[in-house]
């Protein structure tokens, strides 16, 4: 631990020393267009390394857990959407045979009769979505689990993906942590048993489900990773309720404001019959009263109930002569808003209802239409969260990866989490590059959604170090942008002889090398002999995936466009057709790098250019090549051959 801390500290100090020197003394301003991006990319990497050092600062292996709580109730949830029935059945049988007394349920979002039959045959429960979900956002896996939470009663919940086969001792070895009444979550590693030697697709994440989670755990910030985790029901329900109250509070205030604006405009227009005018007056009065009550802190249930009644009564006597107009108005606005609201199909947070009302409130409506609109407004946003199937949604729905957002909110409420490093479930990883890439893209997209929607740096309730632990993971997904600069810089030098730094003089090496070397030592010490090289390769090689994730998440959160979210394919891609198309960008980059090395050599050998700079850049390019080369093996990979036939049929997680 002491060694680790010394190395971590040295890395940060030498890193600051290097990057400060880069900013202050060595930017080649004549070539600012490459020099500045490069120094920004280097600053990015320094922050990344500093966050890693902070993560490792308190990395610890926990002692054996206390014995499990006696006589508590536990539910085991197996979430599935489209995985083959056989695969789910295998997991369900293993779940049924978990030693600690429990109830097992298959949560089948695919609502498949054959899955229901399999559940009955195995002797486990079967839960699907009810009618209330029809035409409402389904919120993917988060919605699936939330739906099951309302129909089950266990105090603790083990959540499993369909392809995570639990071992019998999984509950015995995790429930003990809940003796501490503040513990809400125990996460165990996700390790895959069908990974070929050398892990060609980079499926395993030994660094993450080891030192990194242990490091986060040291700061009480171990994440929920969606599967192989046990959660305390009380904590989840509390999360759902706090979220419900907050969202309702916000929505009701916004609706009353917009409704008032609609009525005010209608009254200003004038030229209406006395009866209509009276109805408008009464509606306005009701709204004013409601806002006053809200300001006084009266319960929202009553405020909305009263104002709804009054508004309904006010316009009861009137016959809306142009009911059609208002409908047309609304349809028009819905169309302008992009038809089927994109967020609805991805089940993001509520707010579509209010948006419609807000849009209505800016339009000129006839008085009768205005009354209609107000009624609609009040119906749309109520204490019943009418646009959602469930009023209370324990698992966060702001992201396609519900897990990280959920544990962040748990931490913000003051709950503790635990990372228990013991293999308690055997997973099945994707076996072809396309599927693996889709999965990686989805994780990155989900993480960036949370980054943009609920940035931990600005969240309240968590300690600074907890916020930094979440931020650290999000920050690492920005690596694609830095990679582009790192790939471009040597090409620019080798082809055009343009230097991003003022010189390759010894000064550069004196600043750079100590940092670089100590940084590598930090990785070595932190990894404790775990294989981390695959991860490093993929971090660089998948730069198009990371960039796409950032861009699509930005478009989704800020511009409200669909996430273009692909469900992981059901069937393994045809292995005879090599998926070269999946790595077009990387192939182009490799070609450009190759050509630039040739040009660089020509410049040195024939034109007599500077030697040191060329050598540095060729070494740099060589590193890029070694990283990118991981994709060659991945494209040519034929799937896992090491296990029985079943492994071949098993498909990927959703």
């Amino acid at each position: 631990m002491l060694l680790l801390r010394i190395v971590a500290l040295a890395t940060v100090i030498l890193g600051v020393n290097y990057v400060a020197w880069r900013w202050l003394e060595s930017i080649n301003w004549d070539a600012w267009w490459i020099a500045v991006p490069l120094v920004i990319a280097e600053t990015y990497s320094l922050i990344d390394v500093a966050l890693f050092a902070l993560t490792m600062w308190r990395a610890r292996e926990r002692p054996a857990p206390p014995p499990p709580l006696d006589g508590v109730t536990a539910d085991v949830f197996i979430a599935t959407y489209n995985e083959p029935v056989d695969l789910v059945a295998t997991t369900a049988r293993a779940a049924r045979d978990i030693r600690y007394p429990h109830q097992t349920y298959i949560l089948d979002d695919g609502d498949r009769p054959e899955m229901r039959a399999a559940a009955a045959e195995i002797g486990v429960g079967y839960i699907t979505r009810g009618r209330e979900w029809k035409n409402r956002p389904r919120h993917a896996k988060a919605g699936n689990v939330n739906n099951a939470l309302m129909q089950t009663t266990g105090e603790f919940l083990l959540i499993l993906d369909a392809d995570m086969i639990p071992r019998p001792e999984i509950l015995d070895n995790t429930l003990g942590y809940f003796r501490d009444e503040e513990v809400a979550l125990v996460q165990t590693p996700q390790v895959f048993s069908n990974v070929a030697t050398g892990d060609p697709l980079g499926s395993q994440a030994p660094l993450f489900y080891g030192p990194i989670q242990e490091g986060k755990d040291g700061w009480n910030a171990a994440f929920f990773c969606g599967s192989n985790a046990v959660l305390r029901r009380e904590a989840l329900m509390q999360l759902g309720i706090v979220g419900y109250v907050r969202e309702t509070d916000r929505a009701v205030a916004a609706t009353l404001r917009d409704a008032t604006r609609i009525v005010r405009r209608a009254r200003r227009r004038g030229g209406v019959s006395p009866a209509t005018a009276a109805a408008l007056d009464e509606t306005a009065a009701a709204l004013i009263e409601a806002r006053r009550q809200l300001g006084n802190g009266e319960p929202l249930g009553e405020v909305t109930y009263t104002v709804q009644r009054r508004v309904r009564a006010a316009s009861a006597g009137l016959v809306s002569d142009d009911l059609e107009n208002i409908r047309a108005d609304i349809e028009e606005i819905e169309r302008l808003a992009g038809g089927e609201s994109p967020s609805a199909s991805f089940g993001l947070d509520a707010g579509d209802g209010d948006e419609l009302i807000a849009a209505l409130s800016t339009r000129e409506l006839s008085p009768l239409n205005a009354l209609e609109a107000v009624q609609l407004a009040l119906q749309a946003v109520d204490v019943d969260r009418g646009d959602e199937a469930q009023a209370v949604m324990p698992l966060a729905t702001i992201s396609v990866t519900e897990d990280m957002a959920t544990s962040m909110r748990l931490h913000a409420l003051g709950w503790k989490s635990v990372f228990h490093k013991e293999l308690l479930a055997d997973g099945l990883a994707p076996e072809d590059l396309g599927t693996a890439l889709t999965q990686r893209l989805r994780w990155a997209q989900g993480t960036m959604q949370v980054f943009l929607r609920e940035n931990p740096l600005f969240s309240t309730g968590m300690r600074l170090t907890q916020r930094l632990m979440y931020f650290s993971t999000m920050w690492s997904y920005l690596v694609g942008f830095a990679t582009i600069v790192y790939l471009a810089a040597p090409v620019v030098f080798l082809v055009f002889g343009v230097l991003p730094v003022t010189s390759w003089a010894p000064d550069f090496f004196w600043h750079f090398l100590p940092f670089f070397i100590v940084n590598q030592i930090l990785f070595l010490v932190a990894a404790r002999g775990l294989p981390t090289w695959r991860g490093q390769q993929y971090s660089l090689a998948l730069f198009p995936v990371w960039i796409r994730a950032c861009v699509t998440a930005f478009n989704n959160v800020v511009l409200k466009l669909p996430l273009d979210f692909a469900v992981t394919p059901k069937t393994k891609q045809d292995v005879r057709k090599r998926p070269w198309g999946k790595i077009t960008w990387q192939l182009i980059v490799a070609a450009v790098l190759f050509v630039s090395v040739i040009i660089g050599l020509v410049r040195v050998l024939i034109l007599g250019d500077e030697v040191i700079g060329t050598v540095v850049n060729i070494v740099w390019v060589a590193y890029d090549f070694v990283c990118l080369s991981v994709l060659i093996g991945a494209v040519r990979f034929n799937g896992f051959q090491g296990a029985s036939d079943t492994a071949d049929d098993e498909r990927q997680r959703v």
Partner: protein
Amino acid sequence: MQFTTEHLGTDIAVVRADGRLNMVSAPELRETVTVAITTGRSRIVVDLGATSFMDSSGLGALIGCLKSARQAEGDLRIAAPNDQVRMVLKLSNVDRILRSYDSPDEAYRD
């Protein structure tokens, strides 16, 4: 835990929750209220006078029932919570949504 439903007036149902309203009994409360609503009584009072304890699942069930009642154009109100339950309502901010009435009779006086 035991739930009993009594009728009040033409469209009010008083659901009495006896015992601990927690994760075990929460689904049962949902069911009881759903039955009341489907039999035409969409104005619900949950009488918490004999409720000794409530957790977040209990709160979740109350909110779920409020949603069902509202969608049937009715309402859900609560009456006579004890100190522990009052504290839970306060800590969870659910008192921002639901007012606690002193008795079921008072709940629909308006």
